[in-house]
């Protein structure tokens, strides 16, 4: 019995250790940003909001945040309707097309982002779209599309088709039945997909590294140069902003799913 008790203790200890390991970098980054020093140090020294001031007043950082928000909003606007339509279309497929459709939609997740980035760089360089927000939006839409489809498909699976059929049998046209019955039921999935799309774009670094050029620098790309050339506490402040966005969007998603 002592053997199994020891095994149980070892399992719990490793579990606790891994939980700490998982959370540590997320938690440690926030205090880094409030340091008074010109360099990053953990634990931070003193308390000051000067690095947030830098973030919101310097042209480079503020510009990057604005670019990130615009790109993420446009990506959401492009990927959400297209992904929702695609999920509805995939649900109507039959036989071997189901498998083909599923693999097809998962491909952007399976292919390493760096490969997609290089491929898009080649295409957008030919089209003269490197360093532009439309170029970034096109690239991010590819990454975001599978997440919208997965979220809508998850709700669609639980959706009782008979409600739609009931509406049809009561005389609603296919389009009316869709608009008044199916769509409201799908809305939580669509909203979750939209939030995912926003976060995918806002968080992306690898695609943007190739497509941002000098004209469309996003927050993660600006952070990258911040880390590479001098480790400024402004990077920690920017990290906190990214962290805040993730938490906000995930909280929203949780709220959407509960309703």
């Amino acid at each position, binding site marked *: 019995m002592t053997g199994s008790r020891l095994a149980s203790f070892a*399992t719990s200890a490793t579990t606790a250790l891994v939980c700490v390991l998982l959370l540590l970098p*997320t938690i440690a980054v926030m205090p880094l940003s409030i340091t008074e020093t010109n360099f990053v140090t953990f634990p931070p020294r003193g308390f000051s909001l000067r690095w947030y001031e830098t973030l919101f007043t310097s042209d480079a950082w503020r510009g990057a945040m604005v670019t990130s928000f615009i790109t993420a909003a446009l990506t959401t606007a492009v990927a959400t309707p297209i992904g929702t339509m695609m999920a509805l279309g995939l649900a109507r497929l039959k036989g071997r097309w189901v498998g083909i459709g599923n693999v097809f939609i998962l491909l952007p997740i399976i292919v390493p982002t760096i490969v997609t980035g290089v491929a898009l760089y080649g295409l957008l360089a030919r089209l003269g779209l490197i360093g532009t927000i439309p170029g970034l939006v096109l690239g991010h839409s590819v990454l975001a599309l599978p997440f919208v489809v997965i979220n809508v498909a998850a709700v669609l699976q639980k959706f009782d088709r008979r409600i739609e059929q009931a509406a049809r049998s009561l005389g609603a046209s296919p389009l009316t039945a869709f608009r008044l019955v199916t769509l409201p039921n799908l809305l939580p999935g669509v909203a979750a997909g939209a939030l995912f799309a926003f976060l995918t774009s806002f968080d992306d670094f690898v695609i943007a590294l190739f497509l941002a050029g000098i004209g469309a620098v996003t927050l993660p790309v600006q952070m990258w140069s911040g880390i590479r050339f001098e480790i400024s506490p402004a990077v920690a402040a920017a990290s906190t902003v990214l962290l805040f966005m*993730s938490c906000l969007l995930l909280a929203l998603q949780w709220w959407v799913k509960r309703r």
Partner: protein
Amino acid sequence: MMSSPAGLRRTTRSATTFFLLLPGLVVLAGMFILPVAQLVIDSFSDPAGALVHYQRIAVVPVYLLVLARTFLISAITAALCLLLGFPIAYRLAHSGPRVKAIILLCIFLSFWTNLLVRAFSWMVLLNPNGIFSQALAFIGLGDQIKLVYNTTGVLIGQTQILLPYMILPLAAVMSRVDPTLMNAARSLGASPTRAFLAVYIPLVKSGALAGSVLVFALSLGSFVIPALLGGPRDMFLAQLIEFNINNTLNLPFASALATVLLAATIVLYWIGDRWFGLGQVWGGR
């Protein structure tokens, strides 16, 4: 036949399906499938010969070294993730709702923290003046062990980033294990260790292999962690690709390297899906 009501309905149905799929197909084909295909074609179309870039990869020692190190470090990462991920997946699969909720919260908070943010945080935590080095110095190991800008740093970062991809599929398989099987083994006289090794492990092996293949495949394409936490000797394939685009502007050579990475990834997912049920693990969550 098309004019019969059933045939007409079927045609309308197919047309609607096609119409629903069309915009997505256009975006994915135009912005993803075609550019990736073009990349593969570009890598084989050099005036000096189709395989010029691949010969260069196979002949120049530095490139082979980068390839070998990428595969080696990814394999060690997968092993570390399995070692650390197995106990936590076990707890996640077989504990009460409260422990489950805490573990899931840790996983998802970490998972949704921007990759660059986590890498930056590790840089600060592991640096020679950081808390870990100070703790090591305190127990008298400070000068011997360097934690960052070397392979150790890459392994710490990679393992932390990729652990969720091991834990979640593994826990999904573990939670499907019928607990009565373990009890049956015990009642037939097997010791807890024997029951665990002879009954439990074979039942969850597919999950462990699927998780390992997934972590390995994801690690092969890593860029941020090796670039920020590794030293000059820890260059990954993805860094070599980026260097050839943003520094030496050699897109065809970068395309050949990217094709190698793409091929390795596709083969891995195919193996994972075919033999270890990676697809089911994915869909089953």
